[in-house]
Protein backbone atom coordinates (compact mmCIF):
# COMPACT_ATOMS: atom_id res chain seq x y z
CA UNK A 1 0.00 0.00 0.00
CA UNK A 2 2.68 2.53 0.92
CA UNK A 3 4.38 2.01 -2.44
CA UNK A 4 1.27 3.24 -4.19
CA UNK A 5 0.89 6.11 -1.73
CA UNK A 6 4.50 7.15 -2.31
CA UNK A 7 4.01 6.86 -6.07
CA UNK A 8 1.11 9.33 -5.91
CA UNK A 9 3.09 11.54 -3.51
CA UNK A 10 6.10 11.54 -5.81
CA UNK A 11 3.92 12.47 -8.76
CA UNK A 12 2.37 15.33 -6.80
CA UNK A 13 5.76 16.66 -5.73
CA UNK A 14 7.07 16.47 -9.28
CA UNK A 15 4.05 18.43 -10.53
CA UNK A 16 4.72 21.12 -7.93
CA UNK A 17 8.32 21.43 -9.06
CA UNK A 18 7.40 21.51 -12.74
CA UNK A 19 4.63 24.04 -12.02
CA UNK A 20 7.44 26.32 -10.79
CA UNK A 21 5.98 26.62 -7.31
CA UNK A 22 9.48 27.04 -5.93
CA UNK A 23 9.73 30.42 -7.58
CA UNK A 24 7.87 31.56 -4.48
CA UNK A 25 11.12 31.01 -2.58
CA UNK A 26 12.75 33.60 -4.80
CA UNK A 27 9.86 35.94 -4.10
CA UNK A 28 10.45 35.37 -0.39
CA UNK A 29 14.08 36.33 -0.88
CA UNK A 30 13.05 39.58 -2.50
CA UNK A 31 10.76 40.35 0.44
CA UNK A 32 13.62 39.74 2.88
CA UNK A 33 15.99 41.93 0.92
CA UNK A 34 13.35 44.64 0.86
CA UNK A 35 12.81 44.36 4.60
CA UNK A 36 16.52 44.44 5.29
CA UNK A 37 17.67 47.16 2.93
CA UNK A 38 14.65 49.36 2.35
CA UNK A 39 12.99 49.35 5.77
CA UNK A 40 16.10 49.35 7.94
CA UNK A 41 16.77 53.10 7.77
CA UNK A 42 13.20 53.73 8.90
CA UNK A 43 13.11 51.37 11.86
CA UNK A 44 14.70 53.61 14.50
CA UNK A 45 16.51 50.82 16.27
CA UNK A 46 14.08 47.98 15.58
CA UNK A 47 15.79 46.57 12.48
CA UNK A 48 16.45 43.12 13.91
CA UNK A 49 12.87 42.76 15.10
CA UNK A 50 11.38 43.92 11.80
CA UNK A 51 13.54 41.65 9.65
CA UNK A 52 12.67 38.65 11.81
CA UNK A 53 8.95 39.54 11.95
CA UNK A 54 8.75 40.09 8.19
CA UNK A 55 10.67 36.89 7.48
CA UNK A 56 8.47 34.66 9.62
CA UNK A 57 5.27 36.35 8.48
CA UNK A 58 6.25 36.02 4.82
CA UNK A 59 6.96 32.32 5.30
CA UNK A 60 3.55 31.81 6.85
CA UNK A 61 1.72 33.86 4.21
CA UNK A 62 3.47 32.34 1.22
CA UNK A 63 2.81 28.90 2.65
CA UNK A 64 -0.84 29.86 3.07
CA UNK A 65 -0.88 30.94 -0.56
CA UNK A 66 0.36 27.50 -1.59
CA UNK A 67 -2.36 25.86 0.50
CA UNK A 68 -5.09 28.04 -1.01
CA UNK A 69 -3.95 27.85 -4.61
CA UNK A 70 -2.63 24.31 -4.77
CA UNK A 71 -4.10 22.38 -1.86
CA UNK A 72 -7.66 23.60 -2.33
CA UNK A 73 -7.54 22.69 -6.01
CA UNK A 74 -5.56 19.51 -5.80
CA UNK A 75 -8.27 16.89 -5.98
CA UNK A 76 -10.86 18.93 -7.86
CA UNK A 77 -8.44 19.75 -10.68
CA UNK A 78 -7.75 16.08 -11.25
CA UNK A 79 -11.45 15.29 -11.12
CA UNK A 80 -12.31 17.93 -13.69
CA UNK A 81 -9.47 16.99 -16.01
CA UNK A 82 -10.26 13.31 -15.46
CA UNK A 83 -6.61 12.47 -14.79
CA UNK A 84 -7.95 10.90 -11.63
CA UNK A 85 -9.86 8.22 -13.53
CA UNK A 86 -6.75 6.53 -14.91
CA UNK A 87 -5.21 6.54 -11.42
CA UNK A 88 -8.18 5.16 -9.52
CA UNK A 89 -8.74 2.43 -12.09
CA UNK A 90 -5.39 0.99 -11.10
CA UNK A 91 -5.47 -1.03 -7.85
CA UNK A 92 -5.34 2.18 -5.80
CA UNK A 93 -7.87 2.85 -3.08
CA UNK A 94 -9.39 6.29 -2.84
CA UNK A 95 -7.94 6.71 0.65
CA UNK A 96 -4.48 5.81 -0.62
CA UNK A 97 -4.85 8.36 -3.38
CA UNK A 98 -5.81 11.16 -0.99
CA UNK A 99 -3.00 10.28 1.39
CA UNK A 100 -0.54 10.28 -1.48
CA UNK A 101 -1.67 13.70 -2.71
CA UNK A 102 -1.45 15.08 0.82
CA UNK A 103 2.04 13.67 1.39
CA UNK A 104 3.19 15.07 -1.93
CA UNK A 105 2.13 18.56 -0.95
CA UNK A 106 3.63 18.06 2.50
CA UNK A 107 7.02 17.33 0.95
CA UNK A 108 6.61 20.41 -1.23
CA UNK A 109 5.89 22.61 1.78
CA UNK A 110 8.77 21.12 3.77
CA UNK A 111 11.22 21.82 0.94
CA UNK A 112 9.91 25.35 0.43
CA UNK A 113 10.10 26.19 4.12
CA UNK A 114 13.55 24.67 4.37
CA UNK A 115 14.82 26.89 1.55
CA UNK A 116 13.07 29.93 2.99
CA UNK A 117 14.44 29.03 6.40
CA UNK A 118 17.98 29.15 5.08
CA UNK A 119 17.39 32.60 3.59
CA UNK A 120 15.75 33.71 6.82
CA UNK A 121 18.70 32.58 8.94
CA UNK A 122 21.12 34.47 6.68
CA UNK A 123 18.97 37.61 6.89
CA UNK A 124 18.72 37.47 10.67
CA UNK A 125 22.46 36.89 11.05
CA UNK A 126 23.05 40.07 9.06
CA UNK A 127 21.16 42.05 11.72
CA UNK A 128 22.30 42.71 15.29
CA UNK A 129 19.87 40.02 16.47
CA UNK A 130 20.96 36.77 18.03
CA UNK A 131 19.72 33.69 16.22
CA UNK A 132 18.40 31.07 18.62
CA UNK A 133 17.00 27.56 18.20
CA UNK A 134 13.62 28.99 18.99
CA UNK A 135 13.59 30.58 15.52
CA UNK A 136 13.70 27.09 14.04
CA UNK A 137 10.93 26.12 16.43
CA UNK A 138 8.81 28.96 15.04
CA UNK A 139 9.44 27.76 11.48
CA UNK A 140 8.54 24.21 12.50
CA UNK A 141 5.24 25.39 13.95
CA UNK A 142 4.52 27.41 10.80
CA UNK A 143 4.94 24.15 8.88
CA UNK A 144 2.59 22.33 11.28
CA UNK A 145 -0.06 25.00 10.88
CA UNK A 146 0.23 24.77 7.09
CA UNK A 147 -0.07 20.99 7.23
CA UNK A 148 -3.29 21.27 9.22
CA UNK A 149 -4.64 23.80 6.71
CA UNK A 150 -3.56 21.59 3.81
CA UNK A 151 -5.48 18.63 5.23
CA UNK A 152 -8.52 20.87 5.57
CA UNK A 153 -8.02 22.13 2.02
CA UNK A 154 -7.95 18.55 0.74
CA UNK A 155 -11.26 17.93 2.53
CA UNK A 156 -12.80 21.08 1.05
CA UNK A 157 -11.44 20.13 -2.35
CA UNK A 158 -13.46 16.92 -2.28
CA UNK A 159 -16.59 18.83 -1.29
CA UNK A 160 -16.54 21.88 -3.53
CA UNK A 161 -15.05 23.56 -6.56
CA UNK A 162 -11.65 25.28 -6.36
CA UNK A 163 -12.95 28.78 -5.58
CA UNK A 164 -15.26 27.67 -2.80
CA UNK A 165 -12.65 25.29 -1.39
CA UNK A 166 -10.12 28.14 -1.28
CA UNK A 167 -12.64 30.40 0.44
CA UNK A 168 -13.45 27.70 2.98
CA UNK A 169 -9.74 27.12 3.64
CA UNK A 170 -9.15 30.83 4.08
CA UNK A 171 -12.17 31.04 6.39
CA UNK A 172 -10.75 28.24 8.50
CA UNK A 173 -7.47 30.15 8.71
CA UNK A 174 -9.28 33.30 9.86
CA UNK A 175 -11.52 31.55 12.37
CA UNK A 176 -8.65 29.41 13.62
CA UNK A 177 -6.80 32.54 14.66
CA UNK A 178 -9.86 34.14 16.23
CA UNK A 179 -11.10 31.20 18.27
CA UNK A 180 -9.82 32.54 21.58
CA UNK A 181 -11.53 35.88 21.01
CA UNK A 182 -14.74 34.20 19.83
CA UNK A 183 -14.82 32.16 22.99
CA UNK A 184 -14.23 35.25 25.10
CA UNK A 185 -16.98 37.15 23.30
CA UNK A 186 -19.31 34.20 23.80
CA UNK A 187 -18.54 34.10 27.50
CA UNK A 188 -19.31 37.82 27.74
CA UNK A 189 -22.54 37.43 25.82
CA UNK A 190 -23.69 34.42 27.82
CA UNK A 191 -26.60 32.08 27.19
CA UNK A 192 -26.95 30.40 23.82
CA UNK A 193 -24.18 32.49 22.29
CA UNK A 194 -21.78 31.25 24.91
CA UNK A 195 -22.74 27.66 24.16
CA UNK A 196 -22.37 28.17 20.42
CA UNK A 197 -19.00 29.81 20.88
CA UNK A 198 -17.89 26.92 23.07
CA UNK A 199 -18.97 24.35 20.48
CA UNK A 200 -17.20 26.22 17.68
CA UNK A 201 -14.11 26.52 19.87
CA UNK A 202 -13.98 22.76 20.35
CA UNK A 203 -14.87 21.73 16.82
CA UNK A 204 -12.26 23.78 14.96
CA UNK A 205 -8.46 23.81 15.18
CA UNK A 206 -7.02 26.65 17.23
CA UNK A 207 -4.25 27.87 14.97
CA UNK A 208 -2.86 30.21 17.62
CA UNK A 209 -1.32 27.09 19.18
CA UNK A 210 1.19 27.19 16.32
CA UNK A 211 1.88 30.92 16.58
CA UNK A 212 4.98 31.67 18.62
CA UNK A 213 6.50 34.09 16.16
CA UNK A 214 6.23 37.22 18.33
CA UNK A 215 7.72 35.43 21.36
CA UNK A 216 10.58 34.04 19.33
CA UNK A 217 11.47 37.42 17.87
CA UNK A 218 11.59 38.90 21.36
CA UNK A 219 14.00 36.18 22.39
CA UNK A 220 11.63 34.28 24.66
CA UNK A 221 12.50 30.58 24.92
CA UNK A 222 10.22 27.91 23.46
CA UNK A 223 9.88 24.77 25.48
CA UNK A 224 10.19 21.32 23.99
CA UNK A 225 6.95 20.51 25.76
CA UNK A 226 5.10 23.18 23.82
CA UNK A 227 6.54 21.91 20.54
CA UNK A 228 5.59 18.36 21.46
CA UNK A 229 2.01 19.23 22.40
CA UNK A 230 1.60 21.36 19.28
CA UNK A 231 2.84 18.43 17.20
CA UNK A 232 0.35 16.05 18.75
CA UNK A 233 -2.42 18.62 18.29
CA UNK A 234 -1.52 19.27 14.66
CA UNK A 235 -1.18 15.60 13.75
CA UNK A 236 -4.54 14.84 15.36
CA UNK A 237 -6.26 17.50 13.29
CA UNK A 238 -4.57 16.28 10.13
CA UNK A 239 -5.89 12.79 10.80
CA UNK A 240 -9.41 14.12 11.43
CA UNK A 241 -9.49 16.14 8.22
CA UNK A 242 -8.05 13.38 6.07
CA UNK A 243 -10.47 10.79 7.45
CA UNK A 244 -13.37 13.14 6.72
CA UNK A 245 -12.00 13.72 3.23
CA UNK A 246 -11.76 10.00 2.65
CA UNK A 247 -15.36 9.48 3.75
CA UNK A 248 -16.59 12.18 1.37
CA UNK A 249 -14.38 11.09 -1.50
CA UNK A 250 -15.40 7.42 -1.20
CA UNK A 251 -18.93 8.36 -2.27
CA UNK A 252 -17.87 10.77 -5.00
CA UNK A 253 -19.02 9.99 -8.52
CA UNK A 254 -16.17 10.36 -10.98
Amino acid at each position, binding site marked *: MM*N*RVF*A*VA*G*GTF*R*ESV*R*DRLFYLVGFFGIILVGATMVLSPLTVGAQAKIVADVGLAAMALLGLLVVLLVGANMVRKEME*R*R*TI*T*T*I*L*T*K*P*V*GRGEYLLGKYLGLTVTLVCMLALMGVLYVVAVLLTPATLAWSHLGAIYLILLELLVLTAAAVLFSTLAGPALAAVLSLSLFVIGHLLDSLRDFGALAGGVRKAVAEVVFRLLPNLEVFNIRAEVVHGDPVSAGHLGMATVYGVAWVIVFLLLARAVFA*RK*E*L
Partner: protein
Amino acid sequence: MRYRSSKLVMKKPELARNESTAAALVVADLQKSFRQGFLGRRGKPAVDGLGFTVQRGEIFALLGHNGAGKTTTLKSILGLVHPDEGSITIGGLDARDPRSRAHVGYLPESPYFHENLTCAELLDFYSRLLGLDRAQRREQRQICLEMVDMQDHADRRLGQCSKGMRQRIGLAQALLGQPELLILDEPQSGLDPLGRRLVREILLEQKRRGTTVVFSSHIVPDVEMVADRVAMIRHGKLDEIKDLREAATKRLFSATVSAPDEGSPLDVALKNPGLTVTHRRPERWTVMAADPASLAELLTACTASGCAVHDVQTAGGDLESEFLVGLETASPMTPKVEVVS
Protein backbone atom coordinates in the same frame (compact mmCIF):
# COMPACT_ATOMS: atom_id res chain seq x y z
CA MET B 1 2.67 4.50 -38.51
CA ARG B 2 2.12 0.78 -38.23
CA TYR B 3 1.50 -1.36 -35.24
CA ARG B 4 4.49 -3.50 -34.39
CA SER B 5 4.24 -6.47 -32.15
CA SER B 6 6.94 -6.02 -29.57
CA LYS B 7 9.94 -8.30 -29.85
CA LEU B 8 10.49 -8.14 -26.13
CA VAL B 9 9.12 -11.02 -24.17
CA MET B 10 6.52 -9.73 -21.82
CA LYS B 11 6.72 -11.49 -18.49
CA LYS B 12 3.51 -11.28 -16.53
CA PRO B 13 4.05 -9.73 -13.11
CA GLU B 14 3.23 -11.90 -10.13
CA LEU B 15 -0.30 -10.77 -9.44
CA ALA B 16 -3.11 -12.62 -7.74
CA ARG B 17 -5.57 -14.16 -10.18
CA ASN B 18 -8.98 -15.73 -9.84
CA GLU B 19 -9.45 -18.27 -12.57
CA SER B 20 -12.53 -19.91 -11.20
CA THR B 21 -14.83 -18.43 -13.84
CA ALA B 22 -14.77 -18.43 -17.64
CA ALA B 23 -16.42 -15.02 -17.74
CA ALA B 24 -14.07 -12.07 -17.62
CA LEU B 25 -16.83 -9.65 -16.75
CA VAL B 26 -20.39 -10.08 -15.56
CA VAL B 27 -22.78 -7.16 -15.32
CA ALA B 28 -26.22 -7.91 -13.91
CA ASP B 29 -29.24 -5.64 -13.71
CA LEU B 30 -27.24 -2.42 -13.60
CA GLN B 31 -29.21 0.63 -12.58
CA LYS B 32 -27.85 4.17 -12.25
CA SER B 33 -29.45 7.60 -12.03
CA PHE B 34 -27.57 10.81 -11.35
CA ARG B 35 -28.68 13.47 -8.94
CA GLN B 36 -29.53 16.74 -10.60
CA GLY B 37 -30.29 20.27 -9.59
CA PHE B 38 -29.72 22.12 -6.37
CA LEU B 39 -31.83 19.69 -4.35
CA GLY B 40 -30.08 16.69 -5.84
CA ARG B 41 -33.17 14.90 -7.09
CA ARG B 42 -32.62 11.74 -9.08
CA GLY B 43 -33.04 12.29 -12.81
CA LYS B 44 -33.91 9.89 -15.59
CA PRO B 45 -31.87 6.68 -15.35
CA ALA B 46 -28.61 6.83 -17.26
CA VAL B 47 -28.48 3.05 -17.15
CA ASP B 48 -31.66 1.05 -16.67
CA GLY B 49 -31.48 -2.67 -16.00
CA LEU B 50 -28.42 -3.34 -18.13
CA GLY B 51 -26.86 -6.80 -18.02
CA PHE B 52 -24.33 -8.73 -20.09
CA THR B 53 -21.49 -11.23 -19.77
CA VAL B 54 -18.15 -10.92 -21.49
CA GLN B 55 -16.24 -14.14 -22.11
CA ARG B 56 -12.51 -14.35 -21.66
CA GLY B 57 -10.53 -13.52 -24.77
CA GLU B 58 -13.31 -11.89 -26.77
CA ILE B 59 -13.68 -8.33 -28.00
CA PHE B 60 -16.98 -6.98 -26.75
CA ALA B 61 -18.34 -3.62 -27.86
CA LEU B 62 -20.93 -1.33 -26.37
CA LEU B 63 -22.59 0.50 -29.23
CA GLY B 64 -24.98 3.35 -28.64
CA HIS B 65 -25.80 6.95 -29.42
CA ASN B 66 -24.35 9.84 -27.46
CA GLY B 67 -25.86 9.72 -23.99
CA ALA B 68 -26.94 6.09 -24.29
CA GLY B 69 -25.19 5.10 -21.08
CA LYS B 70 -22.01 3.52 -22.44
CA THR B 71 -19.59 5.59 -20.39
CA THR B 72 -21.74 5.27 -17.28
CA THR B 73 -21.69 1.50 -17.72
CA LEU B 74 -17.91 1.42 -18.08
CA LYS B 75 -17.42 3.72 -15.11
CA SER B 76 -19.71 1.54 -13.01
CA ILE B 77 -17.57 -1.46 -13.89
CA LEU B 78 -14.45 0.41 -12.80
CA GLY B 79 -15.89 1.79 -9.57
CA LEU B 80 -15.75 5.39 -10.72
CA VAL B 81 -19.51 5.74 -10.25
CA HIS B 82 -21.61 3.86 -7.73
CA PRO B 83 -24.55 1.97 -9.24
CA ASP B 84 -27.90 2.29 -7.56
CA GLU B 85 -28.62 -1.39 -8.10
CA GLY B 86 -27.10 -4.40 -9.77
CA SER B 87 -23.91 -6.38 -9.44
CA ILE B 88 -20.63 -6.39 -11.32
CA THR B 89 -17.86 -8.95 -11.07
CA ILE B 90 -14.49 -8.84 -12.77
CA GLY B 91 -12.81 -12.20 -13.01
CA GLY B 92 -15.06 -13.44 -10.22
CA LEU B 93 -14.14 -10.58 -7.85
CA ASP B 94 -16.64 -7.92 -6.82
CA ALA B 95 -15.87 -4.80 -8.83
CA ARG B 96 -15.98 -2.70 -5.64
CA ASP B 97 -12.84 -4.46 -4.43
CA PRO B 98 -9.73 -2.52 -5.58
CA ARG B 99 -7.98 -5.86 -6.10
CA SER B 100 -10.36 -6.59 -9.00
CA ARG B 101 -8.62 -3.79 -10.92
CA ALA B 102 -5.16 -5.31 -10.54
CA HIS B 103 -5.54 -6.89 -13.98
CA VAL B 104 -7.60 -4.20 -15.66
CA GLY B 105 -6.36 -1.55 -18.04
CA TYR B 106 -8.55 1.48 -18.70
CA LEU B 107 -8.48 4.23 -21.28
CA PRO B 108 -11.01 7.03 -20.75
CA GLU B 109 -12.49 9.03 -23.58
CA SER B 110 -10.16 11.88 -24.61
CA PRO B 111 -7.63 11.15 -21.88
CA TYR B 112 -5.85 14.02 -20.21
CA PHE B 113 -2.54 13.63 -18.45
CA HIS B 114 -0.28 15.99 -16.56
CA GLU B 115 1.35 18.09 -19.22
CA ASN B 116 4.65 18.47 -17.45
CA LEU B 117 5.35 14.73 -17.39
CA THR B 118 7.22 13.03 -20.18
CA CYS B 119 5.73 9.93 -21.81
CA ALA B 120 8.26 7.72 -20.05
CA GLU B 121 7.61 9.34 -16.68
CA LEU B 122 3.89 8.88 -17.07
CA LEU B 123 4.25 5.17 -17.78
CA ASP B 124 6.68 4.82 -14.91
CA PHE B 125 4.17 6.46 -12.58
CA TYR B 126 1.37 4.13 -13.57
CA SER B 127 3.70 1.13 -13.36
CA ARG B 128 4.46 2.05 -9.78
CA LEU B 129 0.75 2.08 -9.04
CA LEU B 130 0.63 -1.51 -10.30
CA GLY B 131 3.29 -2.43 -7.77
CA LEU B 132 5.97 -3.28 -10.32
CA ASP B 133 9.60 -3.18 -9.28
CA ARG B 134 12.18 -1.05 -11.05
CA ALA B 135 13.26 -3.70 -13.57
CA GLN B 136 9.67 -4.57 -14.42
CA ARG B 137 8.77 -0.92 -14.80
CA ARG B 138 11.64 -0.39 -17.26
CA GLU B 139 10.62 -3.44 -19.25
CA GLN B 140 6.94 -2.57 -19.33
CA ARG B 141 7.69 0.99 -20.37
CA GLN B 142 9.69 -0.21 -23.33
CA ILE B 143 7.16 -2.80 -24.37
CA CYS B 144 4.16 -0.53 -24.17
CA LEU B 145 5.85 2.39 -25.93
CA GLU B 146 6.77 0.07 -28.78
CA MET B 147 3.26 -1.29 -28.98
CA VAL B 148 1.84 2.16 -29.59
CA ASP B 149 4.76 3.30 -31.74
CA MET B 150 5.81 6.01 -29.28
CA GLN B 151 9.28 4.69 -28.47
CA ASP B 152 10.89 7.65 -30.22
CA HIS B 153 8.92 10.11 -28.11
CA ALA B 154 9.63 8.69 -24.67
CA ASP B 155 11.22 11.91 -23.45
CA ARG B 156 8.67 14.23 -24.99
CA ARG B 157 6.46 16.12 -22.55
CA LEU B 158 2.79 15.36 -22.83
CA GLY B 159 2.02 19.03 -23.21
CA GLN B 160 3.92 18.91 -26.48
CA CYS B 161 2.10 15.85 -27.78
CA SER B 162 -0.69 15.92 -30.31
CA LYS B 163 -4.12 14.52 -29.52
CA GLY B 164 -3.29 11.34 -31.36
CA MET B 165 -0.04 10.91 -29.45
CA ARG B 166 -1.84 11.44 -26.16
CA GLN B 167 -4.40 8.86 -27.15
CA ARG B 168 -1.61 6.41 -27.91
CA ILE B 169 0.12 7.09 -24.62
CA GLY B 170 -3.24 6.60 -22.93
CA LEU B 171 -3.50 3.25 -24.61
CA ALA B 172 0.06 2.45 -23.52
CA GLN B 173 -0.75 3.10 -19.86
CA ALA B 174 -3.81 0.88 -20.21
CA LEU B 175 -1.61 -1.92 -21.57
CA LEU B 176 0.87 -1.74 -18.69
CA GLY B 177 1.25 -4.97 -16.78
CA GLN B 178 -0.38 -7.04 -19.52
CA PRO B 179 -3.93 -6.65 -18.22
CA GLU B 180 -6.37 -9.51 -18.57
CA LEU B 181 -9.23 -7.11 -19.18
CA LEU B 182 -8.91 -3.97 -21.28
CA ILE B 183 -11.68 -1.39 -20.98
CA LEU B 184 -11.59 1.43 -23.52
CA ASP B 185 -14.03 4.31 -23.79
CA GLU B 186 -14.26 5.52 -27.40
CA PRO B 187 -10.64 4.52 -28.14
CA GLN B 188 -10.71 5.81 -31.71
CA SER B 189 -12.43 9.09 -30.94
CA GLY B 190 -10.73 12.04 -32.61
CA LEU B 191 -8.00 9.98 -34.29
CA ASP B 192 -6.95 10.27 -37.90
CA PRO B 193 -7.24 7.20 -40.15
CA LEU B 194 -3.70 6.07 -39.33
CA GLY B 195 -4.40 6.32 -35.64
CA ARG B 196 -7.64 4.45 -35.97
CA ARG B 197 -5.92 1.67 -37.84
CA LEU B 198 -3.24 1.47 -35.15
CA VAL B 199 -5.86 1.12 -32.45
CA ARG B 200 -7.65 -1.60 -34.41
CA GLU B 201 -4.41 -3.51 -34.83
CA ILE B 202 -3.59 -3.19 -31.14
CA LEU B 203 -7.00 -4.50 -30.15
CA LEU B 204 -6.73 -7.47 -32.48
CA GLU B 205 -3.23 -8.20 -31.22
CA GLN B 206 -4.46 -8.08 -27.63
CA LYS B 207 -7.16 -10.54 -28.53
CA ARG B 208 -4.57 -12.84 -30.04
CA ARG B 209 -2.66 -12.67 -26.75
CA GLY B 210 -5.77 -13.72 -24.89
CA THR B 211 -6.73 -10.35 -23.44
CA THR B 212 -10.43 -9.62 -23.06
CA VAL B 213 -11.37 -6.26 -24.56
CA VAL B 214 -14.46 -4.22 -23.79
CA PHE B 215 -14.81 -0.94 -25.64
CA SER B 216 -17.51 1.56 -26.30
CA SER B 217 -18.23 3.44 -29.49
CA HIS B 218 -20.93 5.24 -31.39
CA ILE B 219 -19.23 4.62 -34.75
CA VAL B 220 -20.51 1.43 -36.34
CA PRO B 221 -17.60 0.70 -38.73
CA ASP B 222 -15.14 0.80 -35.81
CA VAL B 223 -17.20 -1.81 -34.04
CA GLU B 224 -17.72 -3.99 -37.08
CA MET B 225 -14.05 -4.21 -37.87
CA VAL B 226 -12.86 -5.62 -34.54
CA ALA B 227 -15.66 -6.71 -32.25
CA ASP B 228 -16.79 -10.29 -31.77
CA ARG B 229 -20.04 -9.30 -30.09
CA VAL B 230 -21.77 -5.99 -29.66
CA ALA B 231 -24.32 -4.84 -27.10
CA MET B 232 -26.59 -2.23 -28.57
CA ILE B 233 -27.65 0.29 -25.98
CA ARG B 234 -30.39 2.82 -26.38
CA HIS B 235 -31.41 5.36 -23.74
CA GLY B 236 -29.79 3.34 -20.97
CA LYS B 237 -31.39 0.05 -21.90
CA LEU B 238 -29.93 -2.96 -23.65
CA ASP B 239 -31.64 -3.58 -27.01
CA GLU B 240 -29.88 -6.75 -27.98
CA ILE B 241 -26.49 -8.41 -28.09
CA LYS B 242 -25.40 -9.27 -31.59
CA ASP B 243 -22.76 -11.80 -32.57
CA LEU B 244 -20.82 -10.14 -35.37
CA ARG B 245 -18.97 -13.30 -36.24
CA GLU B 246 -22.28 -14.68 -37.52
CA ALA B 247 -23.37 -11.37 -39.04
CA ALA B 248 -20.15 -11.13 -41.07
CA THR B 249 -21.58 -13.58 -43.53
CA LYS B 250 -24.71 -11.50 -43.94
CA ARG B 251 -23.13 -8.24 -45.07
CA LEU B 252 -25.16 -6.07 -47.45
CA PHE B 253 -23.69 -4.71 -50.66
CA SER B 254 -24.90 -2.14 -53.15
CA ALA B 255 -23.88 -2.35 -56.81
CA THR B 256 -24.65 0.01 -59.70
CA VAL B 257 -24.80 -1.87 -63.02
CA SER B 258 -25.88 -1.17 -66.59
CA ALA B 259 -29.52 -2.01 -67.27
CA PRO B 260 -29.79 -5.61 -68.51
CA ASP B 261 -31.56 -6.82 -71.59
CA GLU B 262 -34.58 -8.96 -71.02
CA GLY B 263 -33.65 -12.61 -70.77
CA SER B 264 -29.95 -11.93 -70.35
CA PRO B 265 -28.04 -13.83 -67.61
CA LEU B 266 -28.17 -10.69 -65.46
CA ASP B 267 -31.93 -10.45 -65.87
CA VAL B 268 -32.21 -14.06 -64.72
CA ALA B 269 -29.83 -13.58 -61.81
CA LEU B 270 -31.84 -10.66 -60.51
CA LYS B 271 -34.61 -13.09 -59.65
CA ASN B 272 -32.29 -14.48 -56.94
CA PRO B 273 -33.88 -13.78 -53.55
CA GLY B 274 -30.53 -12.45 -52.32
CA LEU B 275 -30.62 -9.64 -54.89
CA THR B 276 -33.04 -6.71 -54.80
CA VAL B 277 -33.27 -3.94 -57.38
CA THR B 278 -33.72 -0.73 -55.46
CA HIS B 279 -33.36 1.87 -58.17
CA ARG B 280 -34.14 1.65 -61.89
CA ARG B 281 -33.06 4.30 -64.33
CA PRO B 282 -33.09 3.91 -68.11
CA GLU B 283 -29.34 3.20 -68.29
CA ARG B 284 -28.41 2.07 -64.80
CA TRP B 285 -29.88 0.01 -62.04
CA THR B 286 -28.91 -0.14 -58.33
CA VAL B 287 -28.98 -3.62 -56.89
CA MET B 288 -28.69 -4.66 -53.19
CA ALA B 289 -26.95 -8.00 -52.51
CA ALA B 290 -27.77 -9.59 -49.16
CA ASP B 291 -24.50 -11.44 -48.75
CA PRO B 292 -21.11 -11.95 -50.45
CA ALA B 293 -22.36 -15.00 -52.30
CA SER B 294 -25.20 -13.07 -53.89
CA LEU B 295 -22.81 -10.29 -54.82
CA ALA B 296 -20.50 -12.79 -56.48
CA GLU B 297 -23.44 -14.18 -58.47
CA LEU B 298 -24.42 -10.65 -59.54
CA LEU B 299 -20.94 -9.81 -60.73
CA THR B 300 -20.65 -13.09 -62.65
CA ALA B 301 -23.98 -12.44 -64.31
CA CYS B 302 -22.89 -8.93 -65.31
CA THR B 303 -19.78 -10.33 -66.96
CA ALA B 304 -21.79 -12.98 -68.78
CA SER B 305 -24.31 -10.35 -69.96
CA GLY B 306 -21.68 -7.86 -71.00
CA CYS B 307 -23.15 -5.32 -68.57
CA ALA B 308 -20.78 -2.80 -66.99
CA VAL B 309 -20.39 -2.67 -63.21
CA HIS B 310 -20.14 1.01 -62.35
CA ASP B 311 -19.88 0.85 -58.56
CA VAL B 312 -19.82 -1.64 -55.67
CA GLN B 313 -20.09 -0.59 -52.02
CA THR B 314 -20.84 -2.15 -48.69
CA ALA B 315 -24.20 -0.91 -47.61
CA GLY B 316 -23.39 -0.64 -43.87
CA GLY B 317 -24.59 -4.09 -43.15
CA ASP B 318 -27.22 -5.14 -40.75
CA LEU B 319 -25.53 -3.46 -37.85
CA GLU B 320 -25.65 0.14 -39.01
CA SER B 321 -29.19 -0.19 -40.26
CA GLU B 322 -30.29 -1.83 -37.08
CA PHE B 323 -28.51 0.81 -35.08
CA LEU B 324 -30.12 3.68 -36.96
CA VAL B 325 -33.55 2.10 -37.14
CA GLY B 326 -33.38 1.27 -33.47
CA LEU B 327 -32.83 4.94 -32.75
CA GLU B 328 -35.72 6.11 -34.94
CA THR B 329 -38.52 3.58 -34.46
CA ALA B 330 -39.88 1.04 -32.05
CA SER B 331 -39.19 -1.82 -34.47
CA PRO B 332 -35.47 -2.02 -34.81
CA MET B 333 -34.84 -5.53 -36.11
CA THR B 334 -35.43 -5.38 -39.90
CA PRO B 335 -33.35 -3.03 -42.07
CA LYS B 336 -35.47 -0.76 -44.22
CA VAL B 337 -34.49 -0.59 -47.86
CA GLU B 338 -36.58 1.61 -50.08
CA VAL B 339 -37.30 0.39 -53.59
CA VAL B 340 -37.82 3.16 -56.11
CA SER B 341 -39.08 2.51 -59.56
